[in-house]
Structures are given as C-alpha cells and as structure tokens.
C-alpha cells in the first residue's frame, strides 16, 4: 500500500466529515427549518419573532414607516404614537428588544431593510449622547451572539468574531457563527423535552405576537417618594419598594464614575458607523434620541464622558439629533417603575412626545 494513502484517506475523511457537519448545520439553522420552532421566549426566538413581525408590518403599512431600535429602556408605545398618525403622517414600529445592543440592531436592520431604503427614519434610543464608559461593556459581551444567531451568515463569521475584544469571546463567537448548533443547544434540548408543547406555543406566538406587543400596557408601579442624597450616595426609598427597584437604583444610579477607557466611543463608532454607512445616500434619516435618564438623573458632576461619537455622526447629511433635553420633563420618580424603565404613565406621556418630536424633525411625509 502506498504509505501516504492512509493519511490521505484520513484527511479526506476529516474533510468530508467537516463538510457533512457544515451541510447539516446549514440545512438546519441557515434555512428556516429550525428557526421556525425556536423557543419564543429565548433571546434568539424573540429576536426572530420581532423580525418576522416587522417584516409582516412592512406589507401592511405604506411608505411612511419609522422604525425604532433600542433596549428595554426605550420603552414607548407604538400604538400611542400611531394615534397621532392622522396628524403626523408617520407610522411607528418598534424593532428594539430588551437586552439588545448595537450589534443586534445592525443585523436586525440588515434583515429588515436589505435595500436600506424601506423606512423614513431609523430612531435609536440611547442613554446619553456622551460616550461614558460604565462597568457594563457590550463590546465584549457574548450575549449579542444569542440575539443575532439566526441572522448570521457564514460570511459574517470572521468579521463578527473579530468585533469582540478578548480572544476567548472571539473564539466563542467564531465557533457559534459557524456552528450554530453550539449556540442553540439548550433551545434544541428544551424542544426535544417538550416537542408538541413547543410547536403549539410557537404557533400561538406567531398568531398573537403582533397584538400582544402592540397593545401591551406596562406596569403602573412607580418610584414616587424616592430621594437621593448625591454627596452621600444614599437613596431613601418609598415604603413598599420592591427589591428590584432598590437593586436597580443602587446599581444604575448610585455608583461612582467608572474609569474612562474609550471603549464605549470605539464601540459606538464601529457599529453605529456601519449602520450609517449602509444608509449613506439613502432617503432614510437616522435620528438619535436621548431617553429619559431615570427617576432622578445622575448629576453632571458624576458624568465622565469626554467624547460624543453621536454628536460626531450629526455632521453626516442624513443624521439628526433630537434635542438632548427634549424629555427631561419626564425624569420624575412617579413616571418610572424602577431606576431604568418608564412606567405606564411615563410611557403614556413619552410616546406622543416622541411622535411629535420625530415628526417635527422629519417634516411632513412627501
């Protein structure tokens, strides 16, 4: 026997096995085969539901759609905004998702708007126009992979992985982007545990998701009575405050400034930059909105940001910045359900204000 043949045979087998794995992975996860039965309450499943919902909405609404993207802090009601449609002429849709961030918004938009021309405006809700670094660094958080997994193509794998900072996370992202089964393992195992139940739940969500989310009414809980002694960094909570209200206030508001490393600026320049580049020359306007900061905003003395990538973007022709203090009037404890999120009343006030602001910035639809 030719002494090289066994090695050649083994190498050929390895190659064929690797191709087999990729083909199987591709058939299962790069087509709609498994995506259609993802757990609706998982990150990937909710992301996919939102994407599907918004793709369907595009068929129903005309040419004057505005899509908003943000995390759970961008709490507003498209239904309340759209009550003003007869006057403003614009229809608001929300493609944001709790826990999501720039990377997820980029891939969401790429799937929702392949020609970068579908919407009148993209509205991004951000905590601050300044690039303040906090202890939470989304640039190296593998969570993003679990949101965008269904939308990653093999051609994205290298670039997506390189967008993380540490080699371990980069490796995790690369492996997950190529072999999606490694990321969706727990979803698959949960499906295998309750197959029929899952399919029934997926069908239920597919039927009702638009109504549930569009007509969703948030909690009336409030932080009314909250006071903060900033010099002492101490909060006094109203009676009956929940542990979540206390913990979010402590972690979100009562912390000393974090070391400023420039990572937030770098991250924003990279991913907002990519989105802006996709829409270069498009009719779609890109609008940044500073969200109501909290029940009691942190004093400016505690804010450390030295740069503002978002203000830099404003020099581009299709980028608009909403007046920074436009929603400061909502920064009251009685309008927040915890330290991060507006409550029912806050949303009821914020939504029409948002619709008015954005419509004014865009002018009447042509």
């Amino acid at each position: 026997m030719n002494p090289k043949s066994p090695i050649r045979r083994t190498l050929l087998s390895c190659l064929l096995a690797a191709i087999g794995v990729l083909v199987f992975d591709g058939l299962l996860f790069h087509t709609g085969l498994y995506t259609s039965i993802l757990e609706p309450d998982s990150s990937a499943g909710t992301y996919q539901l939102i994407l599907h919902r918004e793709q369907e909405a595009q068929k129903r609404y005309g040419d004057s759609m505005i899509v908003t993207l943000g995390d759970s802090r961008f709490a507003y009601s498209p239904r309340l905004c759209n009550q003003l449609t007869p006057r403003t002429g614009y229809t608001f849709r929300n493609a944001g998702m709790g826990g999501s961030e720039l990377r997820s918004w980029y891939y969401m938009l790429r799937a929702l708007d392949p020609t970068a021309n579908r919407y009148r405006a993209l509205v991004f809700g951000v905590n601050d126009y300044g690039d303040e670094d906090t202890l939470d660094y989304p640039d190296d958080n593998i969570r993003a992979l679990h949101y965008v997994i269904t939308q990653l193509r093999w051609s994205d794998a290298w670039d997506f992985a390189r967008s993380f900072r540490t080699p371990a996370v980069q490796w995790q992202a690369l492996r997950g982007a190529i072999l999606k089964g490694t990321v969706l393992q727990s979803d698959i195992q949960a499906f295998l545990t309750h197959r029929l139940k899952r399919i029934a739940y997926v069908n239920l969500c597919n039927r009702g998701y638009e109504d549930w989310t569009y007509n969703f009414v948030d909690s009336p809980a409030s932080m009314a009575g909250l006071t903060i002694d900033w010099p002492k960094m101490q909060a006094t909570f109203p009676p009956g405050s929940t542990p979540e209200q206390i913990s979010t206030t402590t972690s979100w508001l009562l912390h000393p400034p974090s070391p400023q490393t420039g990572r937030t600026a770098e991250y924003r320049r990279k991913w907002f930059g990519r989105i802006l580049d996709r829409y270069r020359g498009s009719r779609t306007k890109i609008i940044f909105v500073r969200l109501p900061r909290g029940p009691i905003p942190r004093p400016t003395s505690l804010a450390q940001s030295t740069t503002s990538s978002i203000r830099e973007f404003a020099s581009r022709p299709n980028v608009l910045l909403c007046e920074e203090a436009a929603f400061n009037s909502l920064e009251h404890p009685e309008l927040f359900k915890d330290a991060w999120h507006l409550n029912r009343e806050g949303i009821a006030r914020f939504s029409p204000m948002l619709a008015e602001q954005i419509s004014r910035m865009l002018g009447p639809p042509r």
Partner: protein
Amino acid sequence: MLFNTTIFFVFLAAVLALFYASPRGLRRYILLAASYFFYGYWNYKFIPLLLILTAIDYTAGIWIEKVGAGRKRKAVLIASLSANLGFLGFFKYFNFVAGNVALLMGKPAGYFFHDIVLPLGISFHTFQSMSYVTDVYRGQQKSVRDPIDYALYICFFPQLVAGPIVRARNFFHDLWNWSPPSGEDISSGFFLLILGLTKKMAFADQFAKVANSYFHDVPAHPGMVTAWSGVFAFAMQIYFDFSGYTDMAIGMAKLLGFHFPINFRRPYLAQSIADFWRRWHISLSSWLRDYLYIPLGGNRHGRLATYRNLILTMLLGGLWHGASWNFLIWGGYHGCLLAAERVFRGDRPPAEKWTWMYPVKAAVTFCLVLIGWVFFRAADLPESLRILQQMFHGGPGPMLLETWHIELIAIALVLAALEEKLDWSDAVVKWPVWAYASTVAAMLLFVELFGVIDAAIPFVYFQF
C-alpha cells in the same frame, strides 16, 4: 490540560507535527518533553515527585536484575514497592488515616489533617511502576537500561493521568520496535479520538449535569424515581466519561505508533458481576488479578480462600479509588457479589453467550452495579444510606432525566448491542471513505448539538 479542551487539541497537534517532522532518534525526547510539559501544565511542582519515583523504580529494576536470586532481590523489590506505596499512601491516604485516628482518640476529624494536594495520576503511574518492578523481579520483564525509555513509560501523556494502566512489556515492545502507524491505526486512532470526545462531551457531561445536581443536594431531591434516575445519571456519566477518556488515550497512542489495551467492553451489557469486571476498567481489574488476587492465592486454596481473596482484592481495589469508607464499601460490595456469584456458579466460568435470559441477567447485573455506584458517588456513608433508603422506600418523586436523555441512552444501547454482535467500531476503519466520514460527521454533530462546550467538566477519574 483536559482532553476535552481546545488547548489540548492545539497541544496534541503540535506534538504530532513535531514528532513526525523530527528525525527518528529525537522522537523519544519529544514525547518525553511533551509528557512532562503536559504534566507540568497542571502543576509543575509535582514534576520532581514524578522524577523521584521514576528514578527509584528505574534503579530498582536494574538492581533486581544485577543481584540475581535470593533475599537481596526480594529486599530491593520490597524497597521499591514500599517507596511507591509510601508516596501513594502519604498523598492519598494520610488524611483518611489521620481523620480516623483522630476520631478514635476523641478529637475532631480534622485534628491531624495536612493540606495535601493529590498529584495528578499518582494512582495510575505508581501501579505501572509497581507492575514493572514486579515483572522484573519475576523474570517476566528485562530491566530497562535507558532512563529516557523508562521515564517515557511512566509519564507518556496519553495515559499518564487516568490510564489505561499499560504493562511494561507491551509499552517497550512498541517503543523498541517502533514503526510508523499503519493506515488502519491512523484511521482507528482518529476515530477513537472523536468517539472518546463524543462520549465525554455529548454523553458524560450531559449526564454529569443531572448527577451533580442530584448528589450536590440529596435531601432536596426526595423520591424513589428521583433517586434511581440520579444514580442512573451518574452510572452513565462515569461510564461515558472514563471510557471516553480511554478511547481518546488509545486513539492518541495509535496516532503516535503505540498500542494500548482496551479498557472497556460495553460493561453495562454484562450478565454477571464477574462479567462486569471483565468489561469495566479492564487494565485495573487485570492488574489487580495479576498482582494481588493471584499472589494472594487466587482460587488455588479452596473455596473459602477464593471468596476471601476475591473480597480482599476488591476491597483494595475500592481503596485504590480513593481514601474513604465509601470506596472501601463499594469495593467490598463488589467483592461480596463476586464471592456470592462464585458460590452459585462454582468453578464454571461466567456465561457470555446470548440466551433468552440475557436481558434479565443484564438488567439484574446493571441494577446491582447501580447500587454500588451509590457508595462510589455519595459524599459519605450517611448520604449513601439516605439514597438507598429513597431508592427502595422513597415516595414518588420527579424523574430527573428528560426525554432526550433517554433517547441518547437508547441510541447508545443500540450501538452497544450492535457492537457486541458485529464489532462495528473495529470494522469502521475498513469502511469506504464516505461511510467512515459519515460516522465521524455524526459523532461531531452529537458534540455540536449535545456537547457541553463552554464548561470543561473534568474527567471523573482525574481525581484518582
């Protein structure tokens, strides 16, 4: 550096590349350096200990041969065995003995404790050393003159940490007559590497999650079904974990041109406890047979002596696993079962043929083995008794295994039954490329979909 980590595969690829790219005369040195690096990567501070044990037994082998027959020869053997058992005893059993002595003296169990870290693989390499010296003493093995060769025998990285326990004559036969691995060896080595990885990551680690959650807090998991499913999960974990490790070790050795003995032969299909021990951790059970059971007299001195030797051998086998009363009870339990079988079976060898009674016998054997695993895995004796109480007198409780766990086992059972009849895993290397590749692809898919990837769960036998 665990076998189921990326860093290990980088290491292995580098070793294979260096090994085959180097002139033949250098290859032993490369393997030795790689093996010490592998060991030192875990804790370099124990390399001197490994060197000392290697030096002792290397010298003892030569000395035994030099002094010829007589008392001196025996004295050297005893000195060598004492050194090995002394090190093993200190690192592995000091705290166990000290704890029991303290309790006998009415003091707290930790009164005489020392903060002792168990050197990785000490139970395995000391057994290899002892078998070598004993074989030289018995005239079954020539002493090894080249210290590099002997050091490599002790620390060869594929089997250093958890075996299989390789006999010196087999290892040196491969080393001294080394030839490049055949085509079948390469195919088989690679296949075993992937098979072991699949067993470990897709099967053992998934069952480990269930078993660990059960054994971590037994009182929180009452119920008969709960107890049986928790213990069943551990039975699956330990089998797939250890046999997976062994498959990887054998596969790696084959890729480097060495041949290790098989260590597992579908043990849960055994028809009796004696059959089980012919299929489970074969390199240890044959070691115990050759260096303990037979020297004790084996079955040569009547029935009672045979039963005593069986129980004593298994007691010591249990103690080898770890310093606790539970391991001793586990070993004693298996010894008693072996003796009881011997009472009923007489001197006839255990049946291995498939008959209509086979499934019943296999099921009974498996249940007996499961009961043994309670002592093996539980933290202490009271916990073992609590689990047994739940297994036989517990109320209803939830099943800890999901449907897909059962499906995984069903797949494994079908494959094992086919293997038992058809030896397909040996034949796979002769299959056409597409069939071989499909089998490898299927295993990789199992790893992709079921493998516990981001939490490298250590191999169970690494603690021994």
